[in-house]
Each structure stands twice: as C-alpha cells, then as structure tokens.
C-alpha cells in the first residue's frame, strides 16, 4: 500500500513543488536585500520560453536550463535598473514586469508552440535507484531537483553564515547604515535582484523542460504568485520556503488523489485546500510575533536614495 500509492504520489509532488522552490528561494534573497519584486510570474514565464527555445535550437536541455536562468536574469535587470537606479516604485514596477513578461514570452514563443523536445533526463544510477521504494524517490530525479535542494542549502548558508550574506541582510534592514559604513547598497541590491531573476528563470525552465516539456502561452499559470506568497509564508527563511513549496505542492496533489479515490466533496472545495492550509499553517507559525518581526527586512519595498 505504502509503496504502491505514497511513493508515486511523492514523485508527483516533487515535480510540482520544484519550480516553486527555485522561484521562492530566489525571491527570499531579493527581499532580504530590501527589494520587493512582484514580477516573479513574469520572470518565470520568460525563463520558461527562453529555456524551451534554446533547447529546441540546440537539442540540449542542459543548455536550455542555463538559457532559462539567463532569460529570467535579463528580465530582472529591467526591474533592477528601474527601481534601483531610477527609484521607481517597486510594487508597481514588479507588476508591470509581469505584464511585460507575459506578453514578451508569447511574442518570443510564437514559433515554438506545438514543438517537442527531449525533456530533462532523470539521473538514473541503476544500483541506487533499484532500491525498492526509496530508490526511485531519492536517487532517480532530474538534476534540477537536486539543484533546488542544493540552492536551498547554499542560500541558507549564504544568508546566515557568510560575510556577504550579513552585508546583504544589513542592506535590507537599514540601508542608510549600510551605506554609511561604505557598502554600495544599490549594487548589492542589483546583484540580489539578478539572482532572484535567474532563480525564477530556473523555476520557469523546470516547467518547460521537466514538469511539462512543451511551450504554450501562459504556461506558468500563476505559479509565480504562489512563490511570492511562499516567501511570506516562510518568513524569509529558505528552508521554510522549501517546506512551504512541498506543503503547497503536496496538498495540490493530494486533493487530486482524493478526487481519484472518489472522495465525496465537490472538486472546487478540494481545490481550495492548498490555499486554506497555507493560510492556517502560517497563522499557526506566526503567532509568535517577535520572530516574524525580526525576519521581515525592515527596508522591504523602500527605495534607497544614496544622496539622502
């Protein structure tokens, strides 16, 4: 029973959650530096089309992954330039970035509709993946699943343990202080924004190369928004975001399973579950209000004017 149902369900959950992990982890770094980029959906969809287009042209999904990250990065540069160098409002610019990105991806992707590619291969070291049950779950994913775990570890280490992570957090907490001791607030934030763009691009690449290896317009279907919510859910902590992505992805899949098993609840009500559970879990973990308050970057969403 366990092996028959739980393992396949977990496999589906991993695929559904991985794009959210990338985008959310990237956005955590952005927000920790004090920048609120609501354009995740736009960067994701451009990452998806960039990854797919390059994979079609080169035939190599690994080059496609890099292209996806790069596409997301390029789009985030627009955001970074406008908000950091021209001090435009971050919330509105992020939303405009999504409008722009959805249109731009449709324009770029026009000739790729209906094309097929070799999807991102699953790593398959047979001596490990033959272990019944756990084998395929732990050892036979595509490399991006492992990358998503690795990035979570790296970002956690970076933010909490590294010197530059400390600087980045300082910039997000009090940009004037960080500036006065000689750090370039704007440059650090730009790098954070570009990293977030690349990560959202990777999330998009995962959609168009692994989750559903195809290109169709609007294929990210709102996942960027979920990733944004997960950052808040995680109170800006990478591992919590990872957990949140799996919780959200997990409930989404479980409700599909429940339907298949014939649970007698209208499907629309079941479809609400991922959203409701996320809210309820957040309510439970945020009752300790001191911890939440210290984790939200104090300068989040505020422009930094170096001249005062």
């Amino acid at each position, binding site marked *: 029973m366990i092996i028959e*149902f739980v393992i*396949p*369900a977990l*496999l*589906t959950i991993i*695929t*559904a959650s991985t*794009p959210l992990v990338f985008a959310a982890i990237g956005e955590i770094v952005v927000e920790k530096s004090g920048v609120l980029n609501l354009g995740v959906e736009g960067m994701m969809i451009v990452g998806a089309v960039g990854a797919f287009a390059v994979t079609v042209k080169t035939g190599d999904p690994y080059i496609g992954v890099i292209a996806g990250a790069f596409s997301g990065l390029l789009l985030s540069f627009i955001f970074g330039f406008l908000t950091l160098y021209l001090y435009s409002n971050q919330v509105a610019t992020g939303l405009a970035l999504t409008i722009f990105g959805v249109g731009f991806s*449709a324009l770029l*992707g*026009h000739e790729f*509709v*209906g094309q*097929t590619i070799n*999807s991102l291969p699953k790593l398959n070291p047979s001596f490990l993946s033959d272990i019944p049950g756990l084998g395929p779950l732990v050892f036979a994913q595509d490399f991006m699943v492992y990358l998503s775990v690795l990035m979570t570890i790296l970002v956690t280490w970076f933010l909490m343990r590294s010197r530059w992570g400390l600087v980045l957090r300082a910039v997000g907490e009090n940009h004037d202080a960080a500036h006065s001791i000689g750090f370039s607030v704007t440059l650090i934030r730009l790098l954070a924004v570009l990293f977030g763009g690349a990560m959202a691009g990777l999330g998009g690449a995962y*959609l168009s190369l692994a*989750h*559903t*290896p*195809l290109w*169709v*317009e*609007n*294929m990210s*279907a709102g*996942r960027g928004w979920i990733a944004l919510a997960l950052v808040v859910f995680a109170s800006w902590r990478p591992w919590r975001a990872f957990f949140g992505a799996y919780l959200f992805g997990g409930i*989404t*899949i479980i409700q*599909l*399973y429940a*339907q*298949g*098993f*014939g649970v*007698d609840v*209208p*499907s*629309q009500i079941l*479809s609400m579950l991922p959203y409701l559970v996320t809210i309820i879990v957040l309510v439970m973990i945020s009752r300790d209000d001191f911890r939440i308050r210290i984790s939200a970057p104090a300068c989040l969403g505020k422009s930094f004017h170096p001249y005062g």
Partner: protein
Amino acid sequence: MKLSSILTSLAISAVSVLFLSAATISQADPLKVGFVYVGPIGDHGWSYEHNEGRLAVEKKFGGKVKTTYVEKVPEGADAQRVINKLASTGHNLIFTTSFGYMNPTLKVAKKHPKVHFEHATGFKRDKNVSTYSGRFYEGRHVAGLIAGKMTKSNVIGYVASFPIPEVIRGINAVSIAARSVNPEVKIKVVWVSTWFDPGKEADAAKTLIDQGADIIMQHTDSPAPVQVAEKRGVWALGQASDMTAFGPKAHLTAIIDNWAPYYISRTQAVLDGTWKSGDTWGGFKSGMVLMAPYNKAIPKEVVAMAEKARIGIIDGSVHAFTGPIKDQSGKIVIPAGKVASDGMLAGMNFYVQGVEGKIPQ
C-alpha cells in the same frame, strides 16, 4: 535616426493621423470576417483550432475576404466591447468562439442588425445570430470503443475541466462506448478546475495513472496529459487537435475540432447573400469532428470496429447514446431502442453507469 528627424516624423504623424481615419473607410472593401478567441492562439488547444479555421477561410477566399482576430478576450465585461468594436469597424460576419460570449453577442447583435453573428456552443439565437457547435461526443464514442478494447486495467482516467454539460456528455459517451465492448471498464474523473494549466493537467494525469488508469483521456486544452502518458507507458487520447507529436507511442487517436468547413460555408453564405440564422451541431457527417490517424499499435480488428462505428454514426445507424442507458443509481434514463434527444444531450447533468464519483455541484 536623429532626434530632429524623429520629431519631424512625430509631427507628421499627428497630421497624418487625422487623414488616416478618413482614408481607411473609403476603400472598396472585401468581406471582413472577425473572430473572438477566449485563449491565446498559442494555446495549442481550443483557440488554436478556431484560428486554424480562420486561416482556412483566408486560404480559400484569398482577396475576397479579410479576417481579423482578437485573442485572450476575457468572458466578462470586455467581450461585449470587443465584439461591438468588430461590428462597428465594418466586420460583416463575426464568430464568437466561447460559451461566455453568448449574451454579449446577443446584445451587440441587437445594435447591429445587418451584421451576421455566429456564436459557438451557446443556445440563444436571434435573426442575425446563429449558434454552432461540434458533436464531439461522437468522437468520444469512437475513442471510448478503442479505450475499452485497449485497456488492461479496466480503468480509464479522465482529466476534466469544469462540470458543464459538454464535458459530462463526453465522459458519459466514453463510459457507454467502452462498457459496450468491455463491461468491466470504470471511468475515474479528476477535475482540475481550469481549461488550461499544463502543470496541473500533467499532475492530474499522473494521479490517475498512479490509481490504476492505463488510458488517459482529457477535456482540457494542453497536450501535457498526452506527454505524461507517453512517459509512463500508458495510452492517451488527444483533445482538440492531433497530439501525436507529444506522445508518438501513447497517442491512440484524437478527437479533432475541425471548424474550417463550417467557417468556409458560412463565409460563402454571406458572400452569396444566402446566410440565415440557425443552429448547427455538426459531427462526423459534416466534418466538424474528425478522428486523428489511429496509432499503429491498435489491432486491426479494433480499428475496423472504430471505423465501423464512425461510418455508422455518419449514416445514422449508430448513436452514441442508444438505450437502454442507466444513470449511476441504476435508473433507466434512456429506454431500450430509443436514442437521447438533442435537448437531453445539450443539458446533460448526470453520470451514466461506469463513471465513478459525483458531479461536483
């Protein structure tokens, strides 16, 4: 380009704009045909197929017609504005291709009595508003026969969008046909509450395969479920267009929406001045519904059976809803020897035997 020349051209533009609007009206116009799509034409599904129909019209009539389309038109307040805009910019034949455009189309049609309107999948008509739709359940019947023969696990997985009669009719048609050749068959339905979200459609297909389905059918728009079937080594039946490319091994056949013949004939009717309001519910016979090429892996006798059914539907000897048909509770809803009326089909709101679960409402 220098700044000064840009400025000059801007100044010229301001002037030319004033004349432009006057100039465009006075041409000897070809027939302008407008199309309103609910999705992007890049969805590779519903809107894509309507656009293929539009392209067929352009190809057929060449310079005699000029077609226009507006894509991604939301079904709320915007629809009426877009349809009205088409009607008031000289479009004399307008196809509105989603159910949610029904009342907006009727409202605009009242304001533009000389313009011909064609609304897909609705049930309200007017002097200048026709309705049309496909009898896709005929395709589902053929698909169901093949599925019933090909399944080993006797579970057909169905990725469904919203509980509307069109979708429920398709599910029932598959159940009836599959069970007619294999009484053990069960249909498992998973509702994804969207027409279009490749990721979610794929997840639903995986779920169904995990729960024992070895045939995946869908009433959503993206080819993602077919891809999943290919990867998992089960069969799949495509929706709206030939999806063989997305699953060369898995793709048994697909039910194709083929709007071209209808769009061409209605355009011809307007050109000839013979257009009349009416209701067209076209199936195999009129070519509005087609089957994609059968997978080579389907045994010859199964193909022969499928083809026999298809031809039978065309000549009227076969109907997808032929009694006796029982609903889930075992009550006879269509008595022996009778076929379902079009009215019953149009508003179908119950599951027949063999479908698991309840309609979510």
